[in-house]
């Protein structure tokens, strides 16, 4: 599903590379946790996957799409196949819950009929039924992240990238979000999660990839958080 072959990204000749010859293979339907201190290269790695950054060298293939041959004009199409969730939610502040989720379908040119059918199901999946007409600022942090997840999965992407989705949440809501990600993974979506939360990493017992100084220093099938 995700293949990285000796991928390097450096931002300047004199700086040490942010991602240094990383090779990685993630199977379809896998649930992978990416851990590492700030500056270890997690964010850069995710940006390479969403094509916000181009690698200095190396090969990236996601969902059968080879990034070397991907035209700039096809990047939006690629991004529609990858769902992304951020620590700071990145919702449209002026739009309601329903509109925020529908937006992901509108940009793909879906009809109103399709949108009216699909969005309520996703809202139910993330447990926000009854809050469709509320605006982001009227919601609690955990609820906002649910909206963001709903927006990311409404197009049924093959891959969901969640970059520190629990970073701004208290433990209880963090676990709600993690359970939701597990549910989405169970339905068949590959999930790539980054987190600093040792408790989550240790209890989930999933594959854990550790990044340090841009290099992979650990890859365990049922990993735990190493300090």
């Amino acid at each position, binding site marked *: 599903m995700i293949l990285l072959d000796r991928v390097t990204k450096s931002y300047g000749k004199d700086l040490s590379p942010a991602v240094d010859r990383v090779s990685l293979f993630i199977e379809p339907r896998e649930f992978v946790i990416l851990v590492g201190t700030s500056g270890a290269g997690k964010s850069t790695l995710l940006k390479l996957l969403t094509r916000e950054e181009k690698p200095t060298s190396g090969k990236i293939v996601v969902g059968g799409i080879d990034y070397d041959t991907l035209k700039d004009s096809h990047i939006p199409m690629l991004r*529609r196949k990858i769902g992304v969730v951020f620590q700071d939610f990145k919702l449209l502040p*002026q739009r309601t819950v329903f509109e925020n989720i529908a937006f992901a379908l509108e*940009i793909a040119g879906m009809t109103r009929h399709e949108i009216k059918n699909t969005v309520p199901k996703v809202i139910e999946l993330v447990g926000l039924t009854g809050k469709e007409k509320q605006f982001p600022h009227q919601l609690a942090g955990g609820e906002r992240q649910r909206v963001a997840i709903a927006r990311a999965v409404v197009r049924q992407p093959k891959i969901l990238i969640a970059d520190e989705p629990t970073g701004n949440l208290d433990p209880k809501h963090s676990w709600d979000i993690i359970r939701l990600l597990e549910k989405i993974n169970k339905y068949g979506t590959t999930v790539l999660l980054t987190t600093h939360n040792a408790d989550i990493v240790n209890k989930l017992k999933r594959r854990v990839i550790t990044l340090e100084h841009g290099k992979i220093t650990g890859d365990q099938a049922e990993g735990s958080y190493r300090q």
Partner: protein
Amino acid sequence: MAKKKLDSKAFAAQKRGRRRLLTFFRIIKYGVDNFVRNSWLSVAATAVMTITLLIILVVVATRVVLTDTVSDLSNKIDMSIYLKTDTTDEAGAELKAKVGELSSVRTVTYVSAEEARAKIAEANSDDPAVLAAINEATNRNPATLRVVVKDINDTTQLEKFVATDTLIKEHLSADYKPSFAGERREVIKSIGRAVNFIQQIGVVVGAIFVVISSLIIFNTISMAIFNRKEEIQMMKLIGADKSFIRGPFLIEAIIYGVIAALIATGLGVWGLFSVADTLASYQIAIQPALDLVKNFALIGLLGMIVIGSTIGIISSLFATRRYLKI
């Protein structure tokens, strides 16, 4: 089989077309929604746009009024070619026709000796002494050709004609030189130069104003877009096409343009009509401008909408460009 393939192709094309139309309507809807929901920014941007359009309107109106006033003035400045007192009306008519044929001449009128005398009498009708003098006098007034040229700075053709044409030389008054020569001509020329200068200044000042206010609009729209750069970033990341991200901003800019054009045109027309009487009392030719407004108000409004929207669209294009790279 071949037919079936064609059908499915046509169906796909039809579906694509429908989606494109749907996307187009969504872009408009998002633009309108953004305008309404970001009301504070909308008001600010529309206000700046209104001021810009008002400045453009004032500059254009001033130019029109100035040009009209000047041409009014230069129509009043006529040059006199004095003829001999014994010039017959027939000869006068012939000379009038010849001068009228010159390309630099706008109008020419022939005033015979009797008419000249009558005019003096009329002008001095409340001065018995002058009237008595006219009646007593035995000498006759010279007949005159009153010439209004198209450009008061350019009298060379007329001068050359007077100097070379045999018929006019024959009838030219010996006592009075034509008024385009000498002192009076210098006065006329300096008025002409002042007019040109004022018009040029008007164009330059107007252009500077338009450039400055376009920059202000660009800044306002840039700030509005800067405030929403995270939103743009997010749209990109969930796979929105560039046109889908940029489109609503352009629609917003067009809305600013339309509303600003309506307000500015309304204010401008109201302003012009309310100062019309005052200006007219200062001998300023305001009437042609008023007629222009009455006859071409709709075209003017459309022009303002086009100018406002264009400035807005260009500003938006520049301001969004930097956030739309991959």
